């Protein structure tokens, strides 16, 4: 049992570091988008009082990627936010691998259920 917790811990440390890198990468992309967005729109009046819902170009992954290719500031920010949303999902994927390495098949199944719920949410909502 003791070597099992140690393995758990080692896998967790690796995953923790990967997550931090993911967050820093996402934050850098958001910052880059912010610079482009502010350079173009800084002196325009801000209006976030009324809810309009974002334009279709900022709602789904294919549309966002298209905007990134055109260096649209808002699209780059949104892409960075998608990277951020992906970090906890990556954590779940890595955990499936970690439990499989430990031959803990009960938890491979439990983790796959969590992953299925996450993918259902992303695909079902039409983002990915």
């Amino acid at each position, binding site marked *: 049992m003791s070597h099992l917790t140690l393995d758990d811990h080692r896998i967790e440390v690796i995953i923790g570091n990967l997550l931090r890198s993911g967050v820093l990468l996402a934050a850098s992309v958001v910052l880059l988008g912010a610079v482009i967005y502010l350079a173009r729109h800084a002196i325009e009046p801000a209006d976030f009082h009324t809810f309009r819902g974002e334009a279709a170009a900022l*709602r789904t992954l294919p549309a966002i990627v298209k905007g990134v290719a055109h260096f649209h500031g808002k699209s780059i920010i949104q892409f960075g936010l998608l990277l951020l949303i992906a*970090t906890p999902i990556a954590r779940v994927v890595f*955990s499936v691998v970690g439990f499989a390495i430990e031959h803990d098949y009960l938890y491979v199944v439990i983790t796959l259920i969590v992953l299925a719920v*996450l993918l259902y*949410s992303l695909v079902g909502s039409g983002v990915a």
Partner: protein
Amino acid sequence: MTILSFTVLIALGSFLAGFLGALTGLGGGVVVVPLLALAFGVDIRYAIGASLVSVIATSSGAAAAYVREGYSNIRIGMFLEIATTIGAIVGAMIATHVTTNAIGIVFGLVLLYSAVLSGRPQPNVPVDDSPDRLATALKLNGTYPVANSLRAYTVHRVPLGFSLMFGAGTLSGLLGIGSGALKVIAMDQAMRIPFKVSTTTSNFMIGVTAAASAGIYLSRGYIDPGIAMPVMLGVLAGSLLGARVLVKARTKWLRLVFSAVIVVLGLEMIYNGFSGKL
């Protein structure tokens, strides 16, 4: 107000929220939504979308630090995430069907509850070695470091804890917050998991739970890059700094002040909700 000054002000406010949230352990998300909705007049749906994104950033960003301490229990976290992620989807669905004023009232009540909770002393988990059959079958029992050794703990009332987690997930999806306070209640009060294990495992779960509703918010157009950008960067920077100084700071009076702020914000959210201003 121009977009530049709006962005800078929101980034500063979010930085402060993230900083105080990390210092007091109450999380930055709970004050970001009222800050945006009440002080800046941002539509509450945009505020919730931005807060949800910042919650993921702080949870994933702090994971490495928490893991190093060796308290978090990945099996408890993963098992309970089945409940929180399904709850989060349900919460996000509800959010798109109820009025913003109703969301504001529920938000205010959760704020008041969080403040009351933070005022109570950390409960001591009684030593009890009778293992729960379901907890044993799910391999939820574990150990945590004390001084130079490891102390074993057993987990109890798994179905109750699982149900409470579904509720915590629903609130997280509905309000765009981590609802860490509720997750800790489920683990520490219902399942009698040691406090340190509850808090660190809860942090681990918050990001995954928020990711389950983030997709729905994004596709419904609730995540505005112009608002989410300063909120995410501000809260992330603030919480990273807060975690650094946490060791040195005397947090007792700070918790009191922050709790008072939360009570005021909670009452104002409820008032504005009932008077139809949100």
